[in-house]
């Protein structure tokens, strides 16, 4: 087997294009120091959106790639509105020096995600995953004058290295048991039947390898027990990077999980041992993730940290889709990710706006927004309502789908009622902590003397578009299929 026979160059064209653009921007940053850095941000975001456009239909059609590129473009746009803080935290004294790469690097990470979506074997999967992760380490620690950012970078690096270690170990076991890196139903079939040697121990080793591979994916999506990095890194990393990690990088994790699990789908039919093992372990992980994410979020006062826990909790809900081991799960995961991405990105835009103008990322910094900026407050309300799953927002529809999946899993496996109970309880706690922001905006009086927020252009556009999309798709979910 060689790489050319499994893949065509054409598959990676969008990824190459993005890497090329990133390289150009970094070169330009080094050679033309006079140009304003925001120009790079504009070009990089535009490049990402163009790539996303090509991924909607046709030759490069790519569901998860679309979400990842759009999220990358949006997080670069977020950096565009965030330049004041960027300059303070990178070069100091409002100097733009050294900020150019910060706008170009997300493109490289995004290219990694695009390769990841095409990966059909573990080598490609590993390499592209590392492209994403390594770039993210740099981005997380990029605000070198900000202690939190450096701490986040280090923590992410160490814990990420640990998860990479587990992943590589898993890959080694996989190769040892199967003799191939290919992820396909045939490989799984032969391994489950003891491979060439025909030994049952081989099947056990294969499952062990699978578990370790899953652990690598769990790290990316922030599922228990590999979620530990999320709160600290999300809180400390620069807000645009956090937005990237929360959406694009999470989408990458789900791509990995999907491509790891789908080869098992034909053999994991209801009633089979393999099916029971897979589904039970996913259910346990989902339940733990739901509990940790949602309960941990309850007492947070820092909005970025809260969104970190929220991203753990939402990942728990997405994991529930994996109880239904069919190809259709990809579509459901995509829908949920779309709803989550729209709402989360707007939330980060709001955080960035408040941080730039009020100097704080605490929930308390949002107080009185309902009075001073009623329209913006409404748009923020829509995104948090969608995260909580209020009817008539897209968040409700996708959460409803997770419940439908859980119910059909209960029917198929005659088990997992406990998971449904946990889902109901944790969905309820979601209302508690997401609505803390709304309480702060509407029920608390604005601080005297604090002026109304000035909403930057990109923030206004993104908040409006995503709130509109959340409401329209939430009232008429059937439009998602057009």
């Amino acid at each position, binding site marked *: 087997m060689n790489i050319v026979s499994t893949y065509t160059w054409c598959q990676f064209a969008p990824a190459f294009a993005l890497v090329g653009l990133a390289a150009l921007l970094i070169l330009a940053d080094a050679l033309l120091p006079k140009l304003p850095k925001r120009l790079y941000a504009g070009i990089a975001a535009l490049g990402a959106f163009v790539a996303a456009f090509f991924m909607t239909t046709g030759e490069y059609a790519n569901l998860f790639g679309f979400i990842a590129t759009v999220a990358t473009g949006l997080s670069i746009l977020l950096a565009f509105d965030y330049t004041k803080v960027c300059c303070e935290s990178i070069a100091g004294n409002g100097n733009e020096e050294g900020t150019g790469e910060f706008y170009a690097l997300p493109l490289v990470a995004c290219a990694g995600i695009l390769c990841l979506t095409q990966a059909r074997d573990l080598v490609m999967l590993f390499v592209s995953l590392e492209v994403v992760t390594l770039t993210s380490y740099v981005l997380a620690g990029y605000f070198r004058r900000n202690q939190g950012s450096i701490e986040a970078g280090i923590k992410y690096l160490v814990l990420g290295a640990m998860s990479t270690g587990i992943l590589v170990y898993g890959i080694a076991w996989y190769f040892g048991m199967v003799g191939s890196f290919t992820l396909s139903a045939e490989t799984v079939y032969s391994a489950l039947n003891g491979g060439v040697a025909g030994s049952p121990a081989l099947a056990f080793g294969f499952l062990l390898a699978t578990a370790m591979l899953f652990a690598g994916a769990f790290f990316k999506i922030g599922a228990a*027990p*590999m979620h530990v990095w999320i709160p*600290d890194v999300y809180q400390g990393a620069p807000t645009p990077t956090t937005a990237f990690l929360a959406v694009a990088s999470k989408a990458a994790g789900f791509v990995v999980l999907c491509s790891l699990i789908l080869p098992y789908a034909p053999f994991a039919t209801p009633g089979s041992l393999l099916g029971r093992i897979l589904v039970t372990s996913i259910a346990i992980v989902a339940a733990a993730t739901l509990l940790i994410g949602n309960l*941990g979020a*309850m007492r947070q006062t820092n909005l970025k940290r809260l969104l970190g826990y929220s991203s753990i909790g939402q990942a728990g809900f997405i994991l529930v889709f994996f109880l239904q081991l069919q190809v259709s799960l990809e579509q459901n995961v995509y829908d949920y990710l779309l709803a989550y991405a729209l709402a989360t990105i707007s939330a980060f835009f709001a955080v960035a706006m408040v941080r730039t103008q009020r100097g704080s990322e605490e929930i308390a910094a949002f107080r009185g927004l309902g009075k001073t900026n009623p329209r913006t407050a409404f748009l923020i309300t829509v995104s948090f309502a969608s995260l909580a799953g209020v009817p008539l927002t897209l968040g409700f529809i996708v959460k409803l789908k997770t419940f439908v999946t859980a119910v059909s899993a209960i029917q198929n496996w005659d088990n997992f009622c406990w998971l449904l109970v946990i889902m109901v309880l944790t969905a309820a706690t979601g209302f508690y902590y997401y609505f803390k922001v709304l309480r702060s905006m509407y029920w608390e009086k604005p601080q005297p003397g604090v002026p109304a927020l000035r909403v930057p252009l990109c923030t206004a556009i993104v908040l409006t578009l995503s709130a509109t999309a959340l409401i329209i798709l939430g009232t*008429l979910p059937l439009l998602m299929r057009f």
Partner: protein
Amino acid sequence: MNMIHNLPWLFLLLPLVVAAIDWVCLNKHPRLAATLSLLSAAATLGLCIAYLTGLQTGTPGVYTWMPCSLEQLCLHLGLVMDPLAMRMMLVVTGIGLLVHFFSIGYMKGDSSNLSRYYAGLSIFMFSMSTIVLADNLAMTFIGWEMVGFSSYLLIGHWFNKASAADAAKKAFITNRVGDFGFLLGILLTLGFFGTMNFADMAGKAAGIAPAVLTVTIVCLFCGAVGKSAQFPLHVWLPDAMEGPTPVSALIHAATMVAAGVYMLVRLQVSMGVEAFTDTACNIIAWTGAITAVIAAIMAVQQDDIKRILAYSTLSQLGYMVMAVGLLAGEAAMFHLYTHAWFKALLFLGAGAIIICCHHEQDIWKMGGLSKRMPLTVLCFMMGTCALIAIPGFSGFFSKEAILDAALAKNPVFFWIGAGVAALTTFYMLRLCIVAFMGPARDHGAEHAKEAGFTMALPLLILAVMAVISGYGFIANDLVPFNGFHAHGFALGLPFYVSMGSLALGILLALAIYGLGSRTKDPLAGNCISKALRNRLYIDALYDKVIIGGLQQGFAHLMEFLDMFLIRGIICQLLVWISVRIGYLCSWLQCGSLRAYSLVSAIGLVILLLLLANQF
């Protein structure tokens, strides 16, 4: 992708999108908003005419709105395109378009936000079309609530006026009472018929116990009682006249209030008449009959031109509901259809008169209008003739159909119908004599001038419809009923009786009010008149006893439960427990890298052990 079969969805999407645009983007451009709304109404009317004249685009797509693990519990969105629905759409979009057009003249110079007004009209068109085209009860219910919402917005359009804001609230809440029963009825239908889809209900009634059927139908009927303002929930309709008059014409006379009748007939058609047990039918018919009688009596002593028409609407709706109860859906829909045209005409005529008399609504301050605005008065008289069922006008044919059906089923209802017809003639002639004849009694009426073009044109079109729409050659093609066929007219008891009641009404009105020379009502001043003017004290009873006593007491009890039990014990306890567990989570999240790695590693080991255990 060929989407032509989805063309009918434009009936819903067009007004909805226009409403959204009017509301969000065109707040500062009322003219543009008006044009857009008008165009969307015209486009839906055009589409409707195209379908009625034979356009075929195949079956419109059915979409799952809310997925569910059980197929029959999923909420689907689909459209029915049978004659009952499409011809009803003609009434809705036709009158809708005329009302949009009329509004341009009527609302000219109004200082309120007109974009909001047109957005409200468009959202009403969307909601009403949803009710008419819905292929299942859940979708009907969505439309049902949406018309309630749009009616709330439009009644309260002049929300600075306390009476308008109160009337909007009253309409909404009264409707909610009926809707509660309707929702129960829908759930019962789902439970016992196993489907909410109209197409699948046929023949299922046979296997269901009559008592269950009765309860189901009566619960569903509750929805109609609220929306079609039947006794005892009729109180909101007269107050709803606080809204702009074109709104009253469209929503509170021609279309929305008829939705209850439409829904009942739709159920009768799809469940089959055998689903309507005798008890249920009696309840429906008696409710209709009582409404018809008390509304007609109350109309006799009203002075406000719009309120007279509102009570007359109540009374006519009572006729239709009575016909449904007599299992004469065909007659009910016939009357709904003719009533829609002539009642819209009467309301728009009243609107033109009100505007020309400088917002004067009291008929005793009008007078002599037939000389000053002859065209409007002529159109109004056409509507009156149709309403009091003078032979040759549309109302005559449909009222005869109902009286025929009543005589065949139960003569009691026949005599009630005849009595109401006499009262109708009396109060309508009272209105016409006082407002149009004799000398002008106030400045407004003295300076009244003919209505402008935008108001006159809809009146003329509606006047034509009020005259001709009842004749067989038109009615057969336009009455919203599957396979409607106008009966041949025959002389007989119903004809003579209705002629008798017509003559009685005319004679009484002439005897009491003469030819318009009186300046105040000779019937006023006694205790009966006072009771009628106070709407038989029904509203007062609701206010004092039900709302003031029962509801407040219940509210206090619920507040106590809410504060003490739910908030105090359940919520606080749950929050306390969850926050403690949250502390545990954040204790693990202490910030130390070593602890993090340890947590991950231990977690993984536990997971692997659990897995190995499965073997």
